[in-house]
């Protein structure tokens, strides 16, 4: 399969009075069509900056991004974004919030079809009964469901998730992850998520890209996650490799993320069992 998304030598520099602040430096990543990739790293390491550049909300200082054989220039409805806070318009109902984008992107379709699209996505995220309520009448978890429906309803080429469940409690987060993974599986949309929740990354992703600490953050390690799909929380937790991968990620975040330029290859897991999951050696992006 060809690469759907290509980030080449992506760099973000902010000018400051004291000179240039390099936030992200020479970030390289290729994502296949239909793949779910997660960026994990500490707060402030620049993972959200990468995502904003991909969304077209932040200017690219150097390097390039190619999405579906076209170089990106600015924001557009071909990328659906789910933000940490749902960012809904408070004076519109859930239905109207989703309809806003649908009207733009499906302007050639007739009214009934557009309504069907909105109703479909709001119902599958579990808001069948509440789609005509305003954000103020919804719980935080329900608002985030609207955010997910809004992103999927546009049939984007790519889904960008910026810590989508960061504001929710653990159990609500588990519920919404299930909603997200189901929708993603049905729609086969290429997705890039940013998170610092290790369990979330393992449950959702095909690949986890660990970022080193900023400034000048880069790709530290890439971990392949081979749990069989469709995934269910219970079966994933029971997978023999689950806690091994979890430990590795936690260890990376606690120890190796802080090292500026990883030189030594960390010891791979003792005997990757049954070929279910394996970690590729450190992929250092030399600068």
């Amino acid at each position, binding site marked *: 399969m060809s690469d759907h998304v290509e980030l080449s030598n992506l760099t973000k520099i902010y000018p400051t009075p004291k000179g240039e602040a390099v936030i992200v430096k020479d970030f390289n990543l290729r994502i296949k069509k239909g793949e779910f990739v997660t960026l994990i790293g500490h707060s402030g390491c620049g993972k959200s900056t990468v995502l904003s550049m991909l969304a077209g909300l932040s200017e690219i200082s150097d390097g390039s991004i190619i999405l579906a054989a076209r170089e990106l220039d600015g924001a557009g409805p071909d990328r659906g974004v789910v933000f940490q806070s749902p960012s809904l318009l408070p004076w519109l109902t859930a239905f109207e919030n989703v309809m806003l984008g649908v009207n733009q992107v499906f302007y*050639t379709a007739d009214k009934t079809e557009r309504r069907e699209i909105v109703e479909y996505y709001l119902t599958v995220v579990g808001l069948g009964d509440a789609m005509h309520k305003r954000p103020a009448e919804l719980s935080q978890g329900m608002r985030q469901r609207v955010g997910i429906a809004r992103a999927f309803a546009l049939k*984007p080429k790519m889904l960008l998730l910026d810590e989508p469940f960061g504001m929710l409690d653990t159990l609500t987060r588990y519920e919404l992850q299930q909603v997200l993974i189901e929708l993603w599986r049905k729609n086969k949309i290429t997705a890039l998520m940013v998170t610092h929740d290790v369990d979330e990354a393992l449950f959702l992703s095909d690949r986890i890209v660990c970022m080193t600490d900023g400034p000048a953050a880069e790709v530290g390690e890439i971990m392949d996650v081979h749990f069989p799909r469709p995934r269910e929380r219970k079966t994933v937790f029971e997978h023999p490799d689950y806690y091994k991968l979890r430990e590795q990620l936690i260890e990376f975040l606690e120890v190796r993320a802080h090292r500026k330029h990883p030189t030594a290859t960390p010891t791979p897991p003792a005997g990757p069992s049954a070929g279910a999951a394996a970690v590729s050696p450190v992929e250092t992006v030399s600068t």
Partner: protein
Amino acid sequence: MAYLELNNVSKHFGGAPVLKDINLSVEKGEFVAIVGFSGAGKTTLISLIAGLLKPGHGSLTLNDLEITGPGPDRGIVFQNYSLLPWLTVFENILLAVEAVNPNWSAAKRTEHVEKYIAMVNLTPARNKLPSELSGGMRQRVSVARALAMDPQILLLDEPLSALDALTRATLQDEISRIWSENKKTVLMITNDPDEGILLADRIIPLTAGPGATLGPEITIDIPRPRDRKAINHDARFKKIRRELIAFMLDSKSERHTSVTKKLILPDIEPEDLERPPRIFSGRPKPKRAGEIKEETVAI
């Protein structure tokens, strides 16, 4: 008879019951955690034990005495700290100590307050107002205030929910340390299964509401002190975590009544807004990829 005992307690506000048939017994010196979803009735449960609400049915007893109203024998730590904004750290705690021990000398009270400020590592901030403190520090004041009253039982109502992950971890360790020094009876309510497993002797799931009730309890036989990193290697931790989360999620999905609804998703492709279509005569038609999808979803 157990130290704290709840017998068939239910509570409703008007219509459907919030809590139903709650049976709970907590032994002296035990640390019990109750895990539940937001909106399941966790705070209602703690308010009943605190005496801030009266049960619709059933009885609650603490140390063989029926709970009829709030009292200093139960110290509460709320999620939103509930400190008086015009009083300093010291004065906030002193207020509680004065109320409980009116006949102590001023010197004794001061000494007592200082001891608890030191216990939560806030001595450098003793003269600050709540508005000058971070969320984590405010919650420490709240913990110190509850402990300074020397209650028979400490009730923690999602004490760490409003804090970020890092502060949360620090305060979890602190609560764990303080508990092992004091051996107070603690009942904690939380929405984080990991937090419950790390801190408690026993963990009890509260099913999703309405009509929430307690599920099967899980005894946490992981030796203390528990290290949050090392615990990941522990087979018991993995097993408890798996069981608990599975139970919680199942209890929630049972709530979804299986009303099926037929949905139609028109299979049309989004328009490329950057490249407007050539102007044909008449209205442009959407691109169609295939036939219309129909799906039946249980809601």
